[in-house]
Protein backbone atom coordinates (compact mmCIF):
# COMPACT_ATOMS: atom_id res chain seq x y z
CA UNK A 1 0.00 0.00 0.00
CA UNK A 2 1.22 3.49 -0.85
CA UNK A 3 2.56 5.21 2.26
CA UNK A 4 0.43 8.04 3.63
CA UNK A 5 2.06 11.31 4.71
CA UNK A 6 0.59 14.00 6.92
CA UNK A 7 1.47 17.60 7.68
CA UNK A 8 -0.33 20.79 8.67
CA UNK A 9 -1.04 23.69 6.33
CA UNK A 10 -3.78 26.30 5.92
CA UNK A 11 -4.92 25.61 9.47
CA UNK A 12 -5.78 21.97 8.79
CA UNK A 13 -4.21 18.55 8.36
CA UNK A 14 -3.02 17.66 4.87
CA UNK A 15 -2.90 13.95 4.03
CA UNK A 16 -1.37 12.60 0.84
CA UNK A 17 -0.31 9.42 -0.84
CA UNK A 18 1.45 8.84 -4.14
CA UNK A 19 3.60 11.93 -4.26
CA UNK A 20 6.51 13.83 -2.79
CA UNK A 21 5.39 15.36 0.53
CA UNK A 22 7.85 18.24 0.14
CA UNK A 23 6.47 19.13 -3.28
CA UNK A 24 2.89 19.04 -1.99
CA UNK A 25 3.88 21.10 1.06
CA UNK A 26 5.44 23.67 -1.28
CA UNK A 27 2.16 23.97 -3.20
CA UNK A 28 0.23 24.63 0.00
CA UNK A 29 2.83 27.06 1.29
CA UNK A 30 2.62 29.06 -1.93
CA UNK A 31 -1.19 29.30 -1.81
CA UNK A 32 -1.22 30.10 1.90
CA UNK A 33 1.44 32.75 1.43
CA UNK A 34 -0.76 34.59 -1.05
CA UNK A 35 -4.26 34.04 0.35
CA UNK A 36 -4.00 33.86 4.14
CA UNK A 37 -6.15 36.48 5.88
CA UNK A 38 -3.85 36.28 8.88
CA UNK A 39 -0.32 36.48 7.48
CA UNK A 40 0.73 40.15 7.54
CA UNK A 41 2.67 39.85 4.27
CA UNK A 42 0.16 37.87 2.24
CA UNK A 43 -1.14 39.48 -0.93
CA UNK A 44 -4.70 39.15 0.36
CA UNK A 45 -3.77 41.09 3.50
CA UNK A 46 -2.28 43.87 1.36
CA UNK A 47 -5.27 43.92 -0.98
CA UNK A 48 -7.72 44.10 1.93
CA UNK A 49 -5.72 46.88 3.59
CA UNK A 50 -5.22 48.98 0.46
CA UNK A 51 -7.04 52.29 0.20
CA UNK A 52 -6.75 52.32 -3.60
CA UNK A 53 -9.85 51.71 -5.70
CA UNK A 54 -7.90 49.93 -8.45
CA UNK A 55 -5.22 47.32 -7.83
CA UNK A 56 -2.91 45.28 -10.03
CA UNK A 57 -2.86 41.78 -8.54
CA UNK A 58 -0.58 38.80 -9.16
CA UNK A 59 -1.51 36.13 -11.75
CA UNK A 60 -2.24 33.60 -8.99
CA UNK A 61 -4.45 36.06 -7.12
CA UNK A 62 -6.33 36.98 -10.28
CA UNK A 63 -6.84 33.33 -11.16
CA UNK A 64 -8.23 32.42 -7.74
CA UNK A 65 -10.46 35.49 -7.61
CA UNK A 66 -11.80 34.70 -11.09
CA UNK A 67 -12.59 31.15 -9.92
CA UNK A 68 -14.30 32.58 -6.82
CA UNK A 69 -16.39 34.97 -8.92
CA UNK A 70 -17.36 32.13 -11.26
CA UNK A 71 -18.31 30.05 -8.21
CA UNK A 72 -20.51 32.91 -7.07
CA UNK A 73 -22.26 32.87 -10.47
CA UNK A 74 -22.62 29.07 -10.40
CA UNK A 75 -24.19 29.16 -6.93
CA UNK A 76 -26.37 32.24 -7.43
CA UNK A 77 -24.17 34.15 -5.01
CA UNK A 78 -24.19 31.61 -2.18
CA UNK A 79 -20.41 31.12 -2.29
CA UNK A 80 -19.28 34.71 -2.05
CA UNK A 81 -15.68 36.04 -1.88
CA UNK A 82 -16.71 39.46 -0.51
CA UNK A 83 -17.58 38.31 3.02
CA UNK A 84 -14.19 38.96 4.64
CA UNK A 85 -15.52 41.85 6.72
CA UNK A 86 -18.59 39.81 7.66
CA UNK A 87 -16.40 37.00 8.99
CA UNK A 88 -14.37 39.50 11.01
CA UNK A 89 -17.56 41.06 12.36
CA UNK A 90 -18.56 37.59 13.56
CA UNK A 91 -15.26 37.39 15.42
CA UNK A 92 -13.19 35.24 13.02
CA UNK A 93 -10.41 37.81 12.84
CA UNK A 94 -7.35 35.68 13.56
CA UNK A 95 -6.06 32.18 13.00
CA UNK A 96 -8.70 29.78 14.26
CA UNK A 97 -6.30 28.20 16.76
CA UNK A 98 -5.93 31.63 18.40
CA UNK A 99 -9.64 32.45 18.66
CA UNK A 100 -10.92 32.74 22.23
CA UNK A 101 -13.88 30.53 23.11
CA UNK A 102 -16.03 33.59 23.61
CA UNK A 103 -15.68 37.34 23.23
CA UNK A 104 -17.62 40.57 22.77
CA UNK A 105 -20.87 40.37 20.77
CA UNK A 106 -20.58 40.16 16.98
CA UNK A 107 -20.19 43.50 15.19
CA UNK A 108 -22.56 44.99 12.67
CA UNK A 109 -23.48 42.51 9.93
CA UNK A 110 -21.92 43.05 6.49
CA UNK A 111 -23.82 41.41 3.65
CA UNK A 112 -22.58 40.60 0.14
CA UNK A 113 -20.80 43.31 -1.86
CA UNK A 114 -20.35 41.19 -4.94
CA UNK A 115 -21.81 43.82 -7.27
CA UNK A 116 -19.18 46.36 -6.18
CA UNK A 117 -16.24 44.26 -7.37
CA UNK A 118 -14.84 43.94 -10.90
CA UNK A 119 -11.90 41.93 -12.17
CA UNK A 120 -10.56 42.62 -15.66
CA UNK A 121 -7.54 40.41 -16.27
CA UNK A 122 -5.28 41.34 -13.37
CA UNK A 123 -6.94 44.68 -12.67
CA UNK A 124 -9.12 44.55 -9.56
CA UNK A 125 -11.57 47.39 -8.94
CA UNK A 126 -13.41 47.57 -5.66
CA UNK A 127 -14.13 50.20 -3.02
CA UNK A 128 -11.59 50.38 -0.19
CA UNK A 129 -12.96 48.57 2.83
CA UNK A 130 -14.38 45.70 0.80
CA UNK A 131 -12.53 42.79 2.38
CA UNK A 132 -12.10 39.58 0.45
CA UNK A 133 -12.06 36.06 1.84
CA UNK A 134 -11.13 33.48 -0.78
CA UNK A 135 -11.09 30.51 1.57
CA UNK A 136 -14.15 29.18 -0.23
CA UNK A 137 -12.02 28.19 -3.21
CA UNK A 138 -8.35 28.47 -2.27
CA UNK A 139 -7.95 25.28 -0.27
CA UNK A 140 -9.66 23.24 -3.00
CA UNK A 141 -7.55 24.89 -5.71
CA UNK A 142 -4.40 23.99 -3.78
CA UNK A 143 -5.59 20.38 -3.45
CA UNK A 144 -6.33 20.14 -7.17
CA UNK A 145 -2.95 21.62 -8.08
CA UNK A 146 -1.14 19.30 -5.69
CA UNK A 147 -2.87 16.23 -7.18
CA UNK A 148 -1.85 17.40 -10.65
CA UNK A 149 1.76 17.11 -9.50
CA UNK A 150 1.52 13.58 -8.08
CA UNK A 151 3.99 11.15 -9.65
CA UNK A 152 1.70 8.12 -9.33
CA UNK A 153 -1.81 7.13 -8.31
CA UNK A 154 -2.78 8.63 -4.98
CA UNK A 155 -4.65 11.46 -3.38
CA UNK A 156 -4.28 14.76 -1.56
CA UNK A 157 -6.67 15.76 1.20
CA UNK A 158 -6.74 19.06 3.08
CA UNK A 159 -8.98 19.05 6.09
CA UNK A 160 -11.02 16.26 4.55
CA UNK A 161 -11.48 17.86 1.11
CA UNK A 162 -9.67 15.68 -1.38
CA UNK A 163 -8.84 15.10 -5.01
CA UNK A 164 -7.59 11.80 -6.36
CA UNK A 165 -5.56 10.28 -9.13
CA UNK A 166 -6.93 6.76 -9.34
CA UNK A 167 -9.53 5.15 -7.05
CA UNK A 168 -9.34 5.86 -3.32
CA UNK A 169 -11.62 4.73 -0.50
CA UNK A 170 -12.67 7.58 1.75
CA UNK A 171 -14.33 7.52 5.16
CA UNK A 172 -17.52 9.56 5.50
CA UNK A 173 -18.83 11.79 8.30
CA UNK A 174 -20.89 9.81 10.76
CA UNK A 175 -19.49 6.50 9.57
CA UNK A 176 -19.37 4.53 6.35
CA UNK A 177 -17.11 4.95 3.35
CA UNK A 178 -17.21 5.46 -0.38
CA UNK A 179 -14.77 4.80 -3.21
CA UNK A 180 -13.86 7.95 -5.13
CA UNK A 181 -13.21 6.57 -8.62
CA UNK A 182 -12.21 9.88 -10.12
CA UNK A 183 -12.56 13.54 -9.19
CA UNK A 184 -12.84 15.03 -5.75
CA UNK A 185 -14.85 14.70 -2.58
CA UNK A 186 -15.48 17.53 -0.11
CA UNK A 187 -17.44 18.00 3.08
CA UNK A 188 -18.79 21.29 4.40
CA UNK A 189 -20.61 21.82 7.63
CA UNK A 190 -20.65 23.28 11.08
CA UNK A 191 -19.17 20.48 13.15
CA UNK A 192 -15.84 22.25 13.46
CA UNK A 193 -14.76 25.91 13.22
CA UNK A 194 -17.33 27.08 15.72
CA UNK A 195 -16.83 29.78 18.31
CA UNK A 196 -18.95 32.12 20.42
CA UNK A 197 -19.38 35.87 20.51
CA UNK A 198 -21.48 37.46 23.22
CA UNK A 199 -22.55 33.96 24.16
CA UNK A 200 -23.97 33.35 20.68
CA UNK A 201 -22.70 30.44 18.61
CA UNK A 202 -20.87 31.43 15.40
CA UNK A 203 -19.53 29.42 12.46
CA UNK A 204 -17.80 30.09 9.17
CA UNK A 205 -20.60 29.27 6.69
CA UNK A 206 -22.17 32.70 6.26
CA UNK A 207 -25.41 33.52 4.52
CA UNK A 208 -24.36 36.23 2.03
CA UNK A 209 -27.80 37.87 2.26
CA UNK A 210 -27.43 38.59 5.97
CA UNK A 211 -23.68 38.41 6.54
CA UNK A 212 -24.38 36.16 9.54
CA UNK A 213 -23.76 32.42 10.08
CA UNK A 214 -26.47 30.39 8.39
CA UNK A 215 -28.73 29.11 11.18
CA UNK A 216 -31.67 27.63 9.31
CA UNK A 217 -29.95 24.78 7.47
CA UNK A 218 -31.13 21.35 8.63
CA UNK A 219 -27.73 19.89 7.77
CA UNK A 220 -24.74 19.36 9.97
CA UNK A 221 -22.39 18.12 7.24
CA UNK A 222 -22.76 17.87 3.46
CA UNK A 223 -20.42 15.63 1.43
CA UNK A 224 -20.35 16.07 -2.36
CA UNK A 225 -18.60 14.20 -5.17
CA UNK A 226 -17.34 16.57 -7.87
CA UNK A 227 -15.25 16.50 -11.01
CA UNK A 228 -12.55 18.19 -8.93
CA UNK A 229 -12.03 19.11 -5.30
CA UNK A 230 -13.03 22.67 -6.24
CA UNK A 231 -16.34 21.57 -7.77
CA UNK A 232 -17.09 19.35 -4.77
CA UNK A 233 -16.18 22.00 -2.20
CA UNK A 234 -18.15 24.83 -3.82
CA UNK A 235 -21.17 22.58 -4.30
CA UNK A 236 -21.02 21.32 -0.69
CA UNK A 237 -21.01 24.87 0.70
CA UNK A 238 -23.88 25.93 -1.56
CA UNK A 239 -25.92 22.81 -0.73
CA UNK A 240 -25.45 23.42 2.98
CA UNK A 241 -26.68 27.01 2.64
CA UNK A 242 -29.62 25.93 0.48
CA UNK A 243 -30.95 23.81 3.33
CA UNK A 244 -33.86 21.56 2.33
CA UNK A 245 -33.35 22.46 -1.34
CA UNK A 246 -29.74 21.25 -1.33
CA UNK A 247 -30.28 17.63 -2.45
CA UNK A 248 -32.44 18.57 -5.45
CA UNK A 249 -30.14 21.44 -6.42
CA UNK A 250 -27.22 19.00 -6.63
CA UNK A 251 -29.32 16.42 -8.50
CA UNK A 252 -30.01 19.05 -11.17
CA UNK A 253 -26.25 19.26 -11.67
CA UNK A 254 -25.66 15.51 -11.59
CA UNK A 255 -23.62 15.76 -8.40
CA UNK A 256 -23.83 12.94 -5.88
CA UNK A 257 -24.21 14.13 -2.29
CA UNK A 258 -24.68 12.77 1.19
CA UNK A 259 -26.29 14.93 3.87
CA UNK A 260 -25.90 14.34 7.60
CA UNK A 261 -28.81 16.06 9.34
CA UNK A 262 -28.44 17.92 12.62
CA UNK A 263 -30.37 15.14 14.32
CA UNK A 264 -27.92 12.55 13.00
CA UNK A 265 -29.94 11.07 10.13
CA UNK A 266 -28.35 10.57 6.72
CA UNK A 267 -29.98 11.68 3.44
CA UNK A 268 -28.59 10.59 0.06
CA UNK A 269 -29.62 12.52 -3.02
CA UNK A 270 -30.74 10.63 -6.13
CA UNK A 271 -27.34 10.98 -7.86
CA UNK A 272 -25.56 9.39 -4.90
CA UNK A 273 -28.02 6.50 -4.74
CA UNK A 274 -27.75 5.98 -8.52
CA UNK A 275 -23.95 5.91 -8.54
CA UNK A 276 -23.60 3.57 -5.61
CA UNK A 277 -26.28 1.17 -6.91
CA UNK A 278 -25.19 1.16 -10.55
CA UNK A 279 -21.50 0.59 -9.95
Amino acid at each position, binding site marked *: *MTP*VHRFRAM*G*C*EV*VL*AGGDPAAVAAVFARWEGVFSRFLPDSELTHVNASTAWTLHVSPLFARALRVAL*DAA*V*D*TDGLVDPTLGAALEACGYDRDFSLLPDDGPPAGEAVSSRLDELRLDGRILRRPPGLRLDLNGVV*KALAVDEAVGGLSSEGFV*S*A*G*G*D*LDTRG*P*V*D*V*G*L*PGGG*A*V*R*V*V*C*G*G*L*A*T*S*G*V*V*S*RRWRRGGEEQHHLLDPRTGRPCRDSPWE*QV*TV*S*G*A*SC*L*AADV*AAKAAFLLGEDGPAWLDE*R*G*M*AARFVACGGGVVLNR*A*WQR*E*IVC*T
Partner: protein
Amino acid sequence: MAALAQAERGPGPGQPSRIEQARARARGAKLAVGALATLVFGVAFVGAKAHAPGHAKHHARPLAAPVSFEQAVRQSALSGGRIAPPVQPPPVVSSTS
Protein backbone atom coordinates in the same frame (compact mmCIF):
# COMPACT_ATOMS: atom_id res chain seq x y z
CA MET B 1 -3.56 109.89 -65.36
CA ALA B 2 -1.61 110.57 -62.21
CA ALA B 3 -1.04 106.86 -61.55
CA LEU B 4 0.08 106.29 -65.12
CA ALA B 5 2.52 109.10 -64.73
CA GLN B 6 3.74 107.64 -61.46
CA ALA B 7 4.23 104.20 -63.08
CA GLU B 8 6.17 105.73 -65.86
CA ARG B 9 8.34 107.59 -63.43
CA GLY B 10 9.05 104.36 -61.32
CA PRO B 11 8.93 104.07 -57.52
CA GLY B 12 9.68 107.03 -55.45
CA PRO B 13 12.64 107.22 -53.16
CA GLY B 14 12.38 104.71 -50.20
CA GLN B 15 9.56 102.78 -51.84
CA PRO B 16 10.02 99.08 -52.91
CA SER B 17 10.13 98.38 -56.58
CA ARG B 18 7.35 96.36 -58.22
CA ILE B 19 9.72 93.40 -58.40
CA GLU B 20 10.36 93.59 -54.67
CA GLN B 21 6.63 93.88 -53.96
CA ALA B 22 6.01 90.79 -56.09
CA ARG B 23 8.72 88.90 -54.26
CA ALA B 24 7.22 89.86 -50.89
CA ARG B 25 3.79 88.63 -52.01
CA ALA B 26 5.37 85.38 -53.21
CA ARG B 27 7.15 84.94 -49.85
CA GLY B 28 3.87 85.41 -47.99
CA ALA B 29 2.10 82.99 -50.28
CA LYS B 30 4.84 80.37 -49.80
CA LEU B 31 4.62 80.75 -46.04
CA ALA B 32 0.85 80.41 -46.10
CA VAL B 33 0.97 77.33 -48.33
CA GLY B 34 3.71 75.79 -46.16
CA ALA B 35 1.78 76.42 -42.94
CA LEU B 36 -1.38 75.04 -44.46
CA ALA B 37 0.45 71.93 -45.71
CA THR B 38 2.03 71.38 -42.27
CA LEU B 39 -1.36 71.76 -40.59
CA VAL B 40 -3.03 69.31 -42.98
CA PHE B 41 -0.18 66.83 -42.54
CA GLY B 42 -0.35 67.12 -38.74
CA VAL B 43 -4.10 66.56 -38.60
CA ALA B 44 -3.83 63.61 -40.98
CA PHE B 45 -0.93 62.13 -38.98
CA VAL B 46 -2.71 62.36 -35.64
CA GLY B 47 -5.91 61.05 -37.18
CA ALA B 48 -4.11 58.10 -38.74
CA LYS B 49 -2.34 57.28 -35.47
CA ALA B 50 -5.57 57.42 -33.54
CA HIS B 51 -7.75 55.45 -35.91
CA ALA B 52 -5.44 53.18 -37.88
CA PRO B 53 -2.21 52.57 -36.00
CA GLY B 54 0.42 50.83 -38.04
CA HIS B 55 1.46 48.62 -35.13
CA ALA B 56 0.20 47.88 -31.62
CA LYS B 57 1.96 49.74 -28.82
CA HIS B 58 1.19 46.94 -26.34
CA HIS B 59 1.05 43.16 -26.49
CA ALA B 60 -1.67 42.03 -28.83
CA ARG B 61 -4.72 40.65 -27.07
CA PRO B 62 -7.30 38.35 -28.58
CA LEU B 63 -10.61 39.92 -29.41
CA ALA B 64 -12.81 39.43 -26.38
CA ALA B 65 -16.45 38.53 -26.43
CA PRO B 66 -18.84 40.74 -24.46
CA VAL B 67 -19.15 39.84 -20.79
CA SER B 68 -22.85 39.07 -21.22
CA PHE B 69 -22.01 36.58 -23.97
CA GLU B 70 -19.31 34.93 -21.89
CA GLN B 71 -21.70 34.58 -18.97
CA ALA B 72 -24.30 33.01 -21.24
CA VAL B 73 -22.04 30.36 -22.76
CA ARG B 74 -19.66 29.77 -19.83
CA GLN B 75 -19.58 26.16 -18.67
CA SER B 76 -20.38 25.78 -15.01
CA ALA B 77 -17.51 24.34 -12.99
CA LEU B 78 -20.01 22.36 -10.96
CA SER B 79 -20.06 18.86 -12.38
CA GLY B 80 -20.05 15.49 -10.70
CA GLY B 81 -17.22 13.05 -10.07
CA ARG B 82 -17.53 9.28 -9.97
CA ILE B 83 -18.05 7.25 -6.83
CA ALA B 84 -18.59 3.56 -6.09
CA PRO B 85 -18.98 1.29 -3.07
CA PRO B 86 -15.77 0.99 -1.01
CA VAL B 87 -13.59 -2.09 -1.36
CA GLN B 88 -11.03 -1.65 1.41
CA PRO B 89 -10.54 0.28 4.66
CA PRO B 90 -10.24 3.99 3.84
CA PRO B 91 -6.83 5.60 4.42
CA VAL B 92 -8.43 9.04 4.66
CA VAL B 93 -11.67 10.58 5.91
CA SER B 94 -13.70 13.40 4.41
CA SER B 95 -14.96 15.69 7.14
CA THR B 96 -15.58 19.30 7.98
CA SER B 97 -12.29 21.07 8.61
